[in-house]
């Protein structure tokens, strides 16, 4: 789902970096409001490490295998700090494994990070209205991938109309991932709810 180098137009790349830098500043500033950032740095780092490792897991579907995305789960667990976490994760994926290009990091972080932020809001809202957290987790996991896929398509098309069909194909390729991520995120949320509910954004306001 990560866009490689050489695909996007200068305008899209520039816009991608600009938005990502702004969102990084905003989310870190937001994070600093209620927590000590010195304490958060090791926390986000080690957690990002865990998500990074988890995203290396292959799940085989038929003849192919897919990587986990986990941006929905990231959003649910880390809240607004999911954005810097995804930034770090994608930088390391690009640098260490060449998953996604270096020039396109800005855009890729937006594609993964904005859905994570949206899903965080959805989870909190959904939980306060009494939706079963497991179902909510499933919805959030799928929804994050869905939004990412749509954003991916939009980015591709806006870089050039030559990419229209490629964009549809890429978005369609994400449908099985959507299902897998949904089930998976649902079960992680169920697990956390039972074992460590304080890792979920529930009752924090009360």
């Amino acid at each position, binding site marked *: 789902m990560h866009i490689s180098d050489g695909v996007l137009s200068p305008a899209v790349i520039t816009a991608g970096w600009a938005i990502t830098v702004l969102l990084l500043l905003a989310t870190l500033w937001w994070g600093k409001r209620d927590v000590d950032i010195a304490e958060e740095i090791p926390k986000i780092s080690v957690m990002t490490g865990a998500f990074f490792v988890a995203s290396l897991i292959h799940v085989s579907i038929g003849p192919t295998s897919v990587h986990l995305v986990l941006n929905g789960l990231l959003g649910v667990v880390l809240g607004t700090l999911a954005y810097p976490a995804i930034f770090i994760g994608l930088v390391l994926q690009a640098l260490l494994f060449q998953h996604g290009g270096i020039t396109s990091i800005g855009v890729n972080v937006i594609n993964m990070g904005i859905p994570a932020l949206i899903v965080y809001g959805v989870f909190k809202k959904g939980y306060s209205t009494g939706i079963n957290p497991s179902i909510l987790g499933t919805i959030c996991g799928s929804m994050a991938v869905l939004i990412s896929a749509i954003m991916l398509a939009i980015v591709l098309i806006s870089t050039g109309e030559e990419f229209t069909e490629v964009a549809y194909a890429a978005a369609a390729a994400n449908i099985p991932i959507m299902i897998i991520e949904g089930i998976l995120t649902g079960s992680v949320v*169920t*697990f956390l709810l*039972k*074992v*460590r509910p304080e890792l979920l954004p529930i009752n924090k306001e009360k």
Partner: protein
Amino acid sequence: MKEAICVKGLTYSYPDGTPALGDINITINEGEKIVIIGPNGAGKTTFFLHLNGTLKSQDNRILIKGKDINGMSNSERIRKVGIVFQDPDDQLFMPTIFDDVAFGPINMGMPEEEVKERVKKALSKVGLEGFEERVPHNLSYGQKKRAALAAVLSMEPEILILDEPTANLDPKSRADFIKVINNLNKEGITTMIAMHDVNALPDLADRVYVLNKGIIAEGSPMEIFSDWDLLKDNNLEAPDIFKFFKVLGCFGYNCEDLPLSLDEAVEVLARTIEKENGHVHLHIHEHTHAEVKDVMHSYNHHTTWHE
């Protein structure tokens, strides 16, 4: 006696090419109590992972009860050999103890009733009756260790392998754990244990292998601990009690079999005294000091930092 495990010329290198195991040959009979000792990084865990087929060996190197492990079905494989790893946190990943202990039986495709039966039985064997609904993550370390054991026992393996079962346990939990393992062995399960804890070793071993990439030595605990050079070359040590009886020898104490544990020491001492008509003399003769020095020196590790 029937062979439980037979390994013929097993060799393994890590994916990056570093050799991990070289030409390992061992034969273990049913019901034996084996301990494997060796320095940190000797390849014990890698070896164990071969024994239940989690790591695949080349061509028929590993026979479990005479049958090639690579040719076994998933459920046969795990019914034959169960491995309890060192860190219980790596093995308990379910929301409840029940789920963790039921995991193996479920993977074996058992019907629900039998799974429940087995969970109950396994938990009672390790003294965790009624812990089904508890969250593994919230247990004490000693309880987690036992839960991890139960999660393997529920598969009712014929061969049980344990990696450092006593590490990080307080003395009581350690004594308890050793007792459980011995009970299982008495029930007929072949046990194979890797451990650093030489003072607990005599309780858990009929026979000892020294592993350091390859099999360096094999023998009774007595034979192994008597071989000073072997111990030194492999960063190993003998139990304190054993060493102390070696020292007693320098003071004129004469006993044929040296004890390895406190329990044995008491027996041996009583026997020796009785044999010598109720009296044993300890005295300092002209060579005593030199001999003591010699014994103590043999067992002392030189501090050479660079590994």
